[in-house]
Each structure stands twice: as C-alpha cells, then as structure tokens.
C-alpha cells in the first residue's frame, strides 16, 4: 500500500514538473515573473486604479460614506482651472503666487535641488575616483549625510534657522541674505529646504556616479595618453559619454524623489509655508476631502510619469549613441 501511495504521489508531482520542463526559456521566465506581476497588480496597480476612481467622485464631508456621487472629470477641471484653490491649503497653481503654489514650488525645488545635487555629486564622485591616501575616510565623510535619518536632518535645519536657538540666523541677517525670521517666509524657507536636500542627497548622486566611473575601462585612458589627449579632452571624450547613463539614472531617481518631497518640508519648515504637491495630497486627505486628495495625487503621478518618460527617451538616446 505504502509503495502504491508513494508512486501515485510521484506521478501527480511529475506532471506539472514535466510541464515546466517543456517550457521554453522565455515562457519559463514569464512563469517565474507571474507571482511578482500578480503581487504588483494587487499592491501597486489596484490602489492606483482605485485612486483614479475616487478622483472621479465629489468630496463628501458629512456622513459615514467617504466619497460623494460620480462627477466625472469635474475635480480635474476645477483643480487645473484654479476653482479648487480655496478648498486646498495653498493653490495648486497661481501665477501671482509662484512661491506659494504647489506646482511651481515643486518644480523649483526639483530643478534647483537636482541641478546642485548632480553637479556636487559628480564633483564628489570624480574626487573619490582618484587614488589618494585616506580615500576610504573621504568616502565615509561624503556618504555620511545620506545615512542621517530624515527627521534628524529636519531638526538640524529647523533649529539652525530658529531665532534665539540657531547660530545662523543673525549672521545671515547681517549679511542681508535672510530676514530675522526665515522660516516665516516662503522664499527663504524654500531655499532652506533646498539646501537641506542638497546637503543630504548629493552623496546619493556621488555613489551612483562613482559606480559608473569605476566601470570605465582604464585602458581607454592609456590610449588617450598615447594619443596625447589633455585632461579636459579625456573627460569630454571618455569619462562623460561613458558615465552619462549612470548620471541620468541617478538624476532620474532624484527627480522622482524630489517631485514627491513631503517629509523634509514637514520637518524643516511646514507645508503651509512651502507647499509641495504631496503636501496638498496629505492636507486634503487629512481634512477629509478624499476625492480632492485623490485628484491631486493622480495629477502628481501623471506629472512624475511625464518627467520620467522624458528621462527614458533621453536615456535611450544615450545608450544608442554609446553603442551599447
């Protein structure tokens, strides 16, 4: 009996086994990816679709229901035409309030912070790529800010610019850079948030660009030396083209991160003073305007998607030109 049962079990096990064996490599790869795709579908796409569906309903402030009746694209129209601004803590976009409109604040923050992070990160990576004594310690020093938790980083910059506590307020006021209450002013607060972000995240850029630099074949530089290329020519013809794809990947990550900025603003300043798109989502949500929150969230996701696609097109160009 035991033998019979055993052979029966091996028979039943062997048929899916045989089916798997008969799959081509591509089919097998897709089979392995299926659980992952199903999981993604559940935890990523379903909430995305649900958010979109919520954004097509009206806000409902009374009663147990969370959202009101179906209103189509009314929320989007009102958000983009500025009619919804009153219900949001700061306007989505208002050309007369560049530094207190969520869209423009997010764009300014993203462009300025990613620019400085790329330039500084590139510089740091070039230095770290050199052979010198104490290079290991220099690497640690540059990467250290990246390891600081966002709340601690936020408190550092919050306290630095607190009157009577921070030591930077008075000297910067005397130099005419800031007022005596920089965190009560949207422009100055935005500058502080950008500086805080650059301080921390340049290290991240440096890390990824350094990885790109390390993968460049050293013999190319030997060839350049033989050909008598100057340092600048070596950089322009070898380093830059070969590291560009790494730089673009790093910039892509940082751009996505910068467009979603929220925690840093909340800890260093406040969403009321420096409103980002994510700030609007959180604040609309916490005042029970779930449909408005979903609408801003979806528009934010669409804007990020647009920016990402620009990078991906650019990335394909670089890869094509690089002959990979």
């Amino acid at each position, binding site marked *: 009996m035991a033998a019979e049962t055993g052979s029966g079990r091996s028979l039943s096990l062997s048929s899916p086994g045989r089916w798997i064996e008969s799959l081509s490599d591509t089919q097998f790869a897709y089979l392995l990816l299926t659980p992952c795709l199903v999981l993604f579908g559940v935890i990523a796409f379903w909430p995305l679709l649900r958010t979109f569906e919520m954004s097509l309903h009206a806000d409902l402030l009374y009663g147990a229901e969370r959202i009101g009746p179906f209103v189509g694209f009314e929320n989007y129209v009102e958000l983009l035409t500025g009619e919804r601004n009153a219900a949001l803590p700061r306007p989505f976009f208002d050309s007369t309030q560049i530094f207190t409109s969520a869209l423009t604040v997010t764009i300014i923050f993203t462009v300025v912070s990613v620019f400085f992070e790329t330039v500084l990160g590139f510089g740091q990576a070039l230095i770290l790529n050199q052979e010198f004594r104490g290079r290991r310690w220099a690497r640690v020093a540059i990467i250290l800010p990246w390891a600081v938790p966002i709340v601690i980083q936020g408190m550092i910059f919050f306290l630095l610019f607190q009157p009577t506590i921070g030591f930077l307020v008075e000297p910067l006021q005397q130099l005419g850079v800031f007022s005596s*209450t920089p965190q009560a002013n949207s422009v100055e607060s935005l500058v502080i948030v950008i500086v805080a972000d650059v301080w921390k995240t340049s290290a991240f850029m440096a890390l990824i660009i350094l990885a790109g630099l390390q993968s460049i074949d050293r013999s190319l530089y030997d060839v350049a030396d033989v050909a008598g290329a100057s340092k600048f020519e070596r950089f322009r013809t070898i380093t830059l083209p070969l590291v560009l794809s790494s730089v673009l990947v790093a910039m892509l990550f940082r751009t996505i991160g910068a467009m979603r900025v929220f925690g840093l603003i909340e800890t260093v300043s406040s969403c009321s003073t420096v409103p980002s798109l994510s700030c609007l989502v959180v604040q609309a949500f916490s005042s*029970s305007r779930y449909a408005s929150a979903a609408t801003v969230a979806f528009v934010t996701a669409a804007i990020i998607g647009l920016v990402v696609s620009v990078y991906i097109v650019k990335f394909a160009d670089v890869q094509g030109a690089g002959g990979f």
Partner: protein
Amino acid sequence: MAPADGDQSSAVDRRRFVKALGATGLTASSGLAGCLSRGSTGPQTIEIAANTDVQENIGEIQAKLHEVGLSNDIELSAIAGVQSSGSRKQQYNRWLSGNLEQPALFMMDSGWSIPFILRDQLVDISQIRPELADTIQQEYFESFVRSIEGQSGGLYGVPLFPTTGTMLYRKDLVREAGFSPERNNWATEPLSWQRFSEVTKETMDATDTRWGFSFQANSYEGLACCDFKEFTGSWGGSYFGKKANLFGPVGERPVTVDSDPVVNATRMVRTFIEGDTQNPLSSVAADISPRAVLQWQEETSRRPFSNGSVVMHRNWPYAIAIAGAADAFGRDLGVMPMPYGVTEQNATYEGYGGTTSSLGGWHVALNPNSPKRAEAIEVMEAMVEPELQLFLFELLGWLPPRPALFETERMRQVPVMGRYVETLKMTVENSTPRPVTVAWPQQSTKIAQQANAAFSGDGTPSQRMQTLKEQLQAIEEASEPKDAAAGGGGGQSPSRTTSGGG
C-alpha cells in the same frame, strides 16, 4: 550531447526551484500566522491611544481608576502616539477609516473631534449610557462639552480636561518696575491691552529685559484656533459673527474677519512687533514683542520666557506647571487672564469682548469597532469620578472639567498649580471653543497664513483680512452640506436638544 546535458541540469534546477518555492511559502505563511496571533492581547486589557504623559504614568492612573470603581480585572494599556496633535488626528483617521478594533479608546483633541462625529466614526454615549451623558452635560463646563456633541445633542465621548489660554508674567520684574499685581488684583481683574502693553514696556525698560511679550504666531493651527482668536475676541470681533455661529450652519453664517475689531486686533499685534509700521494702533505701547514670534509655537515661545528674557508670555496651563516650579520662578511667576480690547458691552459681536481665552482640551472617545465595548465604557465611567479628576490635576496639571471642583480646598492645596486656581477658573469660564466644523481644517490654515502674513508686515492688516474673508467664504460655500449627501446634517447646531440637559 552537451546541450542535452545542459537541458537536463536546467530541468532539475527548475524542479528544485518549484519545491523550494513551495517550502518557502509554507514557512513564510506559518511565520506570518504566528506574528498575527501574537498581536492579540487578553480580553480584559483596554488599549487607549493617548500621549506620553499617560503612558509614563499609566500605573498610577490605573490604580486610581480601580480605586474609584473600575473593576480590578480591567487593565489599561496606553499608546503614546505622536507629539503633534495634527499628526495624531491623521493617525486616528487612518485607524478608524480602516475599521480597526484596537485601540478601544481614543484621547481626542477637542479641536478636531467634531469631524469624526460628523463622519459617524465614534459611538454616541448618550444612546448607551444616558445617565452618564446627563451627568456630563449637567455638571461639566458647557462650552467644553459642546466640542464633543453631535448635531442633535448626543455625547460622543467623555471630556477629560480643558485647557485655556492664560497670561504668565514675571511678578519680580513688574514689582521691580514699580507695579503691584496683588494690590491691583491682576489675578482675577483683567487688564486692558493698553494698560498691559504699557506695563510691559515700562517693565522691559526698567529691568533691562530683552523682550516684553511672547506668544505663538507661527503659521499653524495654534495661531488660528487660539492666539489670533483670543486677540480678535478681546476686541469684540470674531471670524463668523455672533457666538451662536461658532459651530455653523456652514455656508449660511456671515464671515466677519474684515470687520473693525478683527482688523484692530491685527494692527495691535503688528504694533507690538514693529512700532514704526504704517497705521499702528496708537492706543497700545509699541515694540514689545520680538519678530521671532512669527516662527514660534508653544515650546519655542516658552523657552525664552523660562530663560528670563521675557516679561509676559501667553501659553497653556502646562507652562504654569513648568515655570511655577520651585526650581524655576516659583512664587515669582504670576498668572492673569488675557487682557481685553473692549468690554463685553461694547463688543461688535454678541458673546465677545472682555477677557477671552481659547478653549482647548482633550476628550476620551469610544471606537465603534471595539469588541470590548462594555469594559471600555466602564473605564469611561470611572473617568467621570471627581476624585480621579482631582488626582489628574495633581499628577499632570490637567484642569478638571467640572467647575464645582475649582471651589474645593483640595485643588488649592496642589503644589504650584493650586496657587493659580482662581485665575484658571476665570479663564475657563471666559473661554470660547474654536469654531470646529467640517470646513475648519481648511479655514484654520487660511486664517493662520493670512494672520501670520499681516503680523509680519507682508500686506496691510485690512488687505490681508479682506483676502481672508474671500477665502473663508469660498470654503464655506464648498463645504455646505449637499442635500443628497448630508442626510439632514448641517454644521453643528448651536442649540442643544431638551433631552441633553445642561
């Protein structure tokens, strides 16, 4: 043959892979089940979402609850929660929206309990324990109870402790400048803003103190709900006309932030910060507050006062406990009601004028999804006991929610806080709750932004208040109950039903 071998090995790998995957799945799921089952607690432990004060003193609080009648087999476990009240609101919102069974009880800020009530996310206590609701509605401070009542007078929690804005000051400094707080009875006879600012200015100059008056004017909820509301109320003004409009009806009440009393209050604060401003309020002394108030909240404004750099300081009673301690200013700390701009008789809007304090505080509400409802209600019943309220005043400085307890000798005997009971009673009696409706979260943001900008000199007070009026009106219109969705609900009705007592 080599390719065939290769295929064979690949097939074996695949088979092993599938087996390994199955085994991993089993292990993971059993592990997860273990984690989930460990999460449950005993049937008699009631979780309460509270703050660090409660968590650190939970043993003593629980012992006292047992002493006043809570069954000994019910234990209390406290979740400290985040420090910021706004973040805690968001956390509760997520928990209650997710229909979580725990925690059974929530400590809720009176500033945002009403939106939870309007969303049917809390249990109406008056439905299941009418006698408990009656006791509270008859014996507690009426304006405080209002912030946990529904539209039809139902009570959605047990008021725990009220807090009110008070003016702390340095008795030693004002005496040195030649003033006599005792003789003039500052503790219970409010000063006018004119007198207050003159005293402050003279004391600053006579004692060489760096700043005169500190308060909270950062662009945050505390400015809209409290400081700015006190300033405007003391000048006889308000955000929404007469006091009866505090809780609605949203969309139908007037917006009155551009009226003279509100503009005058704004000009007064502007004058305190920068005397050479355009169009200062000439009746008050200028330059008594640092520009830094524009960035200060409670703690950031209290520290300079505790360090001895400030004569007068507006804050909540917790600051009295700190600054009045023997190792701080001790008996040199004075406390007085908030000064007034016009008397009640001369107020533009009914119910305002005279000394005006903002009313804050915390309630304890019941989670409708809790399977331990009976035990949780027993805890709530014990919280109504006067003995427990006096104990919490002693332990944590929480003011009792019952006016009658302010008359007791025991309250006066409490170290530090006991010295200021008369003033505290007066501030609670003259307090106004914040105008919490469904529109308040958006409105308070706009009020704080515009008041902060006006104080900083970014636009004139009247320009800023005009802009604010337009913004508040737009929010009122966007928050009006729609017929289909409202289910008969408006804002909060100011009138209580007859069954509510009071």
